[in-house]
C-alpha cells in the first residue's frame, strides 16, 4: 500500500472528510439562503417601484391625455438607467419609449412578465433581460414599464462567486487538516505497528513507545505494554518448563530405556526379568509423579485452579498436615510440632494443603541436623520441625521451620525454581518440584513463598492475603462435593 493510500485510509482522515462534507453543506445552504433572499428582495423592490410608476404614468394619461403621456414617457426614457418604457397603439405600433425589441407576445399579455429585450438607443444590439409590467390604458393603448435585471444578476453573481471561493478554501483547509491529523496519528500507529511486528517476529522484550500526553493512544500503548509484560513472563515460564522437562524428564526416561535394553540383551532367568520390570514400573511411577507436579504447577500459575475456592481456617490445614506427617517424622528421628492460631482464609484448600505438605516433606528430608547421622547427641530442639499457622496484619502465614543445614543466602532465590535440588548428588528421592509448587500455589492466592534463615535451619513461609485472597474477585460459590460411595 502506498503511503498516500495508507493515509487516506486512516480513521482520522475519513472523519475529516465527513466533517468537511457536512461543513460545506452547511456553508452552501447558508450562502444559498442569503442569495435567494437577496434576489427576492430586489425583485420585490422592482415590483413596488414599477407598480408606483405605472400608477403615476397611467394617472397622467387619464388626466391629461395621450400627448402628455407620450411626453412624460419620452422624457423619462431618455434618462440613463435601467428603467424601460414603451407605449403602443392598440394595433401594436410604437408611440414612445426606449425599448427596441421584445420577445413576441409580451405586449399582448398583461401583468408581470420576465423577458429578453433590446434597447432602442444601444448600438451593439445586445440582448438584456428585464422584469416588465404591461397594462392596458383606456382607448386600447398599452403601457409597458420595467426594470433591467442586470443589477440582480450581478449581485447574484457576487454571492455565487463568494460561495465558490469559500467552498474551495473550506475544502483545501479541510483536506489539509485531515492529512495533517491523519499523518500525526499514522506516524504513531506506524511506530506501534513496527514494534508489534518486531515482537511478533520473536523479540518479546520490545515495548511500544509511550508519549507524554497521556492521550488515548498512550493509554492504549501502556495497556499493550502491560499485556506484553505478562506474555513475556508466561513465555519465559513456558520456556523454562520445557527446558526443565527436557532436562529432568529425559534423565529418568533414559534410565528406563537403558534398563529395558539391558534386560533384553542379557538373557537372564525369569527372576531377572521380573526385577527389571518392577524397576521399570517404579521408575515410570516416579515420572508420572513428576509430570503431575509439573501440570499442577502450570495450572496454578495460569490461574486455572481458581474455580474451587472456599473459606476455611489455615489452622485446620496445619493440624491436618501435622497429623498426616507426624508419624513419618518420628520414624525419621524428628519431632513434628504444631503451633496454630485461627487464621481464616479464602482459597483452594486442597492446593494449600499440598503446598504445606511439600514444605513439611522437604523439612523431613533435608532438615536433619548435620550431626544426626554421625550418631552424636543432638539437642531435642535441633530435631524439631515446627508447623505454624498464624495471622500477621492482613496476611495469613503458614510456615515450616527446621533446624537442619538450611539454604545458603545465595541459593535462597534459586531454590524456588523448578527442579532445583540443592544437594547436587540427588541421593534423596523426590521430583525437586516441592518448593516451586508451593510457590505457584502462593502466587495463585496473591501471596508468595518466603524462604528465610532459622539460624540454623530453614523457615519456609506461605504468606497469603487473609480472606479476600483474590482481590476484586467475589467469593466463588462452591457446592459441596458429593461424597464418594465408600
Amino acid at each position, binding site marked *: 500500500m502506498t503511503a498516500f493510500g495508507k493515509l487516506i485510509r486512516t480513521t482520522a482522515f475519513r472523519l475529516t472528510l465527513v466533517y468537511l462534507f457536512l461543513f460545506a453543506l452547511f456553508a452552501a445552504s447558508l450562502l444559498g439562503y442569503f442569495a435567494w433572499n437577496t434576489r427576492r428582495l430586489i425583485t420585490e423592490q422592482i415590483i413596488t417601484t414599477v407598480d408606483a410608476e405605472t400608477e403615476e404614468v397611467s394617472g397622467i394619461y387619464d388626466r391629461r391625455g395621450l400627448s402628455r403621456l407620450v411626453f412624460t414617457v419620452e422624457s423619462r426614457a431618455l434618462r440613463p438607467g435601467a428603467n424601460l418604457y414603451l407605449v403602443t397603439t392598440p394595433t401594436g405600433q410604437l408611440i414612445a419609449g426606449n425599448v427596441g425589441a421584445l420577445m413576441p407576445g409580451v405586449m399582448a399579455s398583461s401583468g408581470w412578465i420576465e423577458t429578453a429585450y433590446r434597447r432602442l438607443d444601444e448600438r451593439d444590439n445586445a440582448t438584456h433581460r428585464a422584469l416588465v409590467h404591461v397594462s392596458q390604458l383606456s382607448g386600447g393603448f398599452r403601457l409597458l414599464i420595467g426594470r433591467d435585471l442586470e443589477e440582480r444578476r450581478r449581485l447574484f453573481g457576487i454571492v455565487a462567486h463568494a460561495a465558490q471561493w469559500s467552498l474551495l478554501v473550506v475544502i483545501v483547509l479541510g483536506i489539509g487538516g485531515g492529512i495533517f491529523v491523519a499523518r500525526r496519528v499514522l506516524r504513531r500507529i506506524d511506530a506501534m505497528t513496527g514494534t508489534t511486528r518486531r515482537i511478533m517476529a520473536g523479540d518479546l522484550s520490545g515495548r511500544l513507545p509511550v508519549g507524554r500526553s497521556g492521550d488515548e493512544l498512550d493509554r492504549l500503548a501502556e495497556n499493550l505494554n502491560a499485556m506484553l509484560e505478562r506474555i513475556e513472563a508466561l513465555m519465559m515460564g513456558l520456556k523454562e518448563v520445557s527446558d526443565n522437562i527436557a532436562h529432568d524428564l529425559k534423565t529418568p526416561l533414559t534410565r528406563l530405556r537403558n534398563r529395558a535394553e539391558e534386560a533384553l540383551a542379557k538373557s537372564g532367568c525369569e527372576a531377572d526379568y521380573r526385577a527389571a520390570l518392577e524397576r521399570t*514400573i517404579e521408575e*515410570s*511411577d516416579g515420572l*508420572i*509423579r513428576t509430570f*503431575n507436579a509439573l*501440570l*499442577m504447577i502450570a*495450572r496454578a500459575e495460569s490461574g*486455572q*485452579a481458581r*474455580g*474451587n475456592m472456599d473459606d476455611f481456617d489455615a489452622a485446620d490445614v496445619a493440624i*491436618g498436615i501435622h*497429623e*498426616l*506427617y507426624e*508419624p*513419618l517424622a518420628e*520414624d525419621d528421628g524428628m519431632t513434628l510440632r504444631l503451633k496454630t492460631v485461627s487464621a481464616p482464609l479464602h482459597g*483452594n484448600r*486442597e*492446593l494449600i*494443603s*499440598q503446598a504445606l*505438605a*511439600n514444605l513439611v*516433606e522437604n523439612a*523431613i*528430608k533435608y532438615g536433619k541436623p548435620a550431626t544426626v547421622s554421625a550418631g552424636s547427641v543432638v539437642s531435642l530442639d535441633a530435631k524439631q520441625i515446627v508447623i505454624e499457622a498464624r495471622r500477621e496484619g492482613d496476611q495469613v502465614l503458614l510456615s515450616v521451620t527446621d533446624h537442619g543445614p538450611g539454604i545458603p543466602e545465595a541459593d535462597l532465590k534459586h531454590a524456588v525454581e523448578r527442579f532445583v535440588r540443592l544437594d547436587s548428588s540427588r541421593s534423596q*528421592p*523426590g*521430583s525437586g518440584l*516441592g518448593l516451586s509448587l508451593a510457590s505457584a500455589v502462593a502466587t495463585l492466592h496473591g501471596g508468595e513463598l518466603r524462604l528465610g534463615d532459622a539460624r540454623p535451619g530453614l523457615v519456609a513461609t506461605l504468606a497469603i492475603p487473609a480472606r479476600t485472597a483474590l482481590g476484586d474477585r467475589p467469593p466463588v460459590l462452591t*457446592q459441596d*462435593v*458429593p461424597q*464418594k*460411595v*465408600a
Partner: protein
Amino acid sequence: MTATAPEMRLLIIEDDRESADYLVKAFREVGHVADLASDGEEGLALAESGDYDVLVVDRMLPKRDGLSVIGSLRDKGNRTPVLILSALGQVDDRIKGLRAGGDDYLPKPYSFAELLARVEVLSRRNVGPAEETTYRVGDLELDRLSHRVARGKDELTLQPREFRLLEYLMKHAGQVVTRTMLLENVWDYHFDPQTNVIDVHISRLRSKIDKGFERPLLHTIRGAGYMIRDGIR
C-alpha cells in the same frame, strides 16, 4: 493376583483399543467378566440394557463424552456405580466428574492394581457391612458407635485417625485398599505425597492390632496396598 471378591460383571467404555483390550484381559484374568464399548453411544446403550456391577467410563469418548453418558444414565434412574477414568487428573476435574454422577475418579495413567481395588470396593456385589454398627474381622472387633476397638479380650487404644483408618479397612474387609484410597477416604486429601506417609500410619496401626497376636489380620498386598482379613493369604 487372586480375585478377592466374587465375580463381577463390568462394562468398560473406552475408545483406546489397546488399553481397553488390556483392561478386559486383566479383569478376566482375575475372574471378572468385562464387556467393552468403544464410544459413548454404544456404551450408553449397553449400560442401559445390561446388568452391570460397575461401569468404568473414560471421560473423553467419541460421539458422546463420558460425563454425558453418566448424566443420562443417572437421569433415567440407573444407579450402577461408575468409576471415571481420565487424563484430566486435577482436583477440579475430579469434582466435575463426581458432580456429574460418578462414584470414583481415577486419573490416567493408573496401575491396574489401583483400578481393580477401586472397582471391587465400588461394586454392588460388595455392599459390605456398611450399615452395621460393629465390624468384625477374626477376633478383632470395632464398635462404630462407642469407638471401642478390641482384639480378643484385649481392649485397644487407638488415636482418632487410627480409628478411622481401621474403620475404613474393616468396612472393606477382604478387599484390597490402596494407599491413594486411604489418603482420599480417611484423610480427604487428593494429592500424591512423594513419601510413604501412609505406610507409616499403617505400620503404627499394625503394631497396635497385630503385635503379640499369632494371626496377623492386616496384610500388605505387594504392588497394590493393604487388606484386612482373617486367614492366611
